[in-house]
């Protein structure tokens, strides 16, 4: 499913997905892309990194965010990793979140794909079930095409 030009995602059954271009901070620039996918409903007033969503996750739920940066960021060390990340269960930690909440577990990966700089941020509903959560995340990422 083509969410927006340059970003395709095969949406799993029961998932909700939202994509939009951010309002450009500097007039005249094209806004960066923001994609949210979750196994729970996405409220309208959610934060870009999942506030107001992650607190609704059940133990087996997942929230995923693709946050795009300005194109020139792709040349910086922070985005040196090329291609879609391959998250491991050990990458997740309860403190890997903007706002850690009991039980939840977050993971964050910076990378460049097709010359565009991204952060993949994923929150699992249960840190103790991060193994199965990582598997679900992998399944989702398999359906992502950036180009």
């Amino acid at each position, binding site marked *: 499913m083509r969410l927006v030009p340059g970003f395709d995602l095969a949406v799993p059954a029961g998932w909700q997905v939202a994509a939009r271009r951010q309002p*450009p*901070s500097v007039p005249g620039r094209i806004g960066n892309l923001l994609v949210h996918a979750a196994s729970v409903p996405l409220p309208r007033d959610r*934060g870009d*990194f999942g506030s107001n969503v992650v607190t609704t996750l059940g133990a087996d739920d997942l929230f995923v965010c693709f*946050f795009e940066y*300005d194109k020139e960021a792709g040349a910086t060390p*922070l985005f040196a990793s090329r291609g879609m990340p391959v998250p491991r269960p050990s990458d997740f930690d309860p*403190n890997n979140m903007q*706002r850690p909440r009991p039980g939840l577990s977050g993971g*964050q990966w910076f990378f460049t794909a097709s010359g565009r700089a991204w952060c993949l941020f994923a929150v699992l509903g249960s840190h103790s079930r991060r193994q199965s959560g990582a598997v679900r995340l992998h399944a989702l990422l398999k359906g992502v095409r950036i180009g």
Partner: protein
Amino acid sequence: MRTAETLQALSSKAAPSTWSQRTVDTVTGWLASRTSRRGFLARTAVVGSALAVDSAGFLLKPQSAYASVCGPGSTCSSGWTVFCATINKGINACPPGSIAAGWWKADGASLCGGKARYIIDCNATCSRCAPSGRAGICSRSCWSCGCTCGPAGQCDQRRVCCSAFRYGQCNQQVAQVGGVVCRLVSCRPPWTFANCSTASATDNATRDHNSPALPGAWTAITARYVQIGEFKSPLGPTINAEFGAPGGKAQRYVNGRMSWKSDIGPRYTVGAIAVRYTALGAEAGLLGYPVADPTAIQTARVSRFQRGRISWHPALVKAYETVGPIAIRFNAAGNESGRLGFPIASPVVPTDGVGRASAFQHGRISWHPQTGARLLGTPLARRYVALQAESGRLGYPTLDEETVAEGIVAVQLQQGRIVWSAGTGAIELFDLMAVVYARSGGEMGPLGLPVASEEAVAGGRAQRFAAGRISATEAGGFFTRGPIHDKYVELGAETGQLGWPTTDEFVPTPGVRRNDFQNGWISFDEASGQVTVGP
């Protein structure tokens, strides 16, 4: 008083300006009747801030004023990260050992006048390890800090250096950073003042998060601060919140201060000028409120106040004030761009404890209620100061210095006079010497200019001039000049056979000039040029 009663009281109370202000008045009135003075002051400040940040929330929901000051989610267990101002000596900036690592905004923030409020994460450095692993956040064991909660005794109890998260727009040249130490706030976009990109992130849930060490409302001071550039302004980051000053408000910054008074508006002072202003008591001090923002004079700066000014020149390092009548006289002389240049010291109080004096690059102004503020240029001022200035024998100048003739400058003082020319330098005449000199015609008279300071002679004092001499005893002072003077000196002057003069030069008969002395006289016949000594 319950909430409903509070609101009723609000509607019936006539006067104050805003809804919040009226509410503060009402609530603080209630507090005043139930607490000590110290406790009352502390609580009214908290209540005022609470109402400014979240008026309806504070009044209508069951919560403490502390919670409203800091906004929602202010406990350590809330998961949010503390504000830098809370843990960084009140300074709204990344503390040492941390760098800006990313930002987001909250739209429609009352704390930014209804516009976006930007929150910037300051993440720890990975100072304890060499970088390894994937980009983003380094291993927790490498962080330059450890996880804890906000300091006790205030409401921003949020977490310090706990969350391993990176928004990612700032300092992207740094592959790895540690956890979020704290966050700073701004009403201007981060890419305008920090090494951050424009990639916009939004989280409105944090809109009303705040700290007691941050400005608690959108005030005239905050609006002006944002207008002049906020972090990029000469003032730098805020230090703590706005506070009350006599008759107004004030806010401290790393590099200065903003003062606000209703009839003046917000005005700032910066750098060495702000340091001096604060040392002088700031708004409560002798200068009062600033009436203008700093003015640049090339690389120097000047700030004007209600009762004076402070001037700073980079060559002088420190800033110095001029106050009251001296400031008025300084202004009349063209201020720093005028003949005096910049002040080089703060005003001094002479030993009489009454007057004041200020030294400048090119002169001095002395003030006494009986003489007014009087100006001396450098040549005269230098000699005046060498003679203890206002505290010395000469007293205060009674007039500004005057140019007597081309190349000759003089100033009249309470007990004397100083005369300067390029050929003679500055020479003073004390007391009777000055009186006799004036009687002789002064600088334009027959004696010409003084060529030396007075000297003690047995029984009195004497002073030499270009064409004569003044000799003074307790009995009086008299001048001799020309051929008579030359003869007098030849005969030993005051200590010679003739003793001290008892008259000025006089004309006993036309064409003859004469001086009488204790033991005789000397006359000079202008026609023959003959000098006669008698008896």
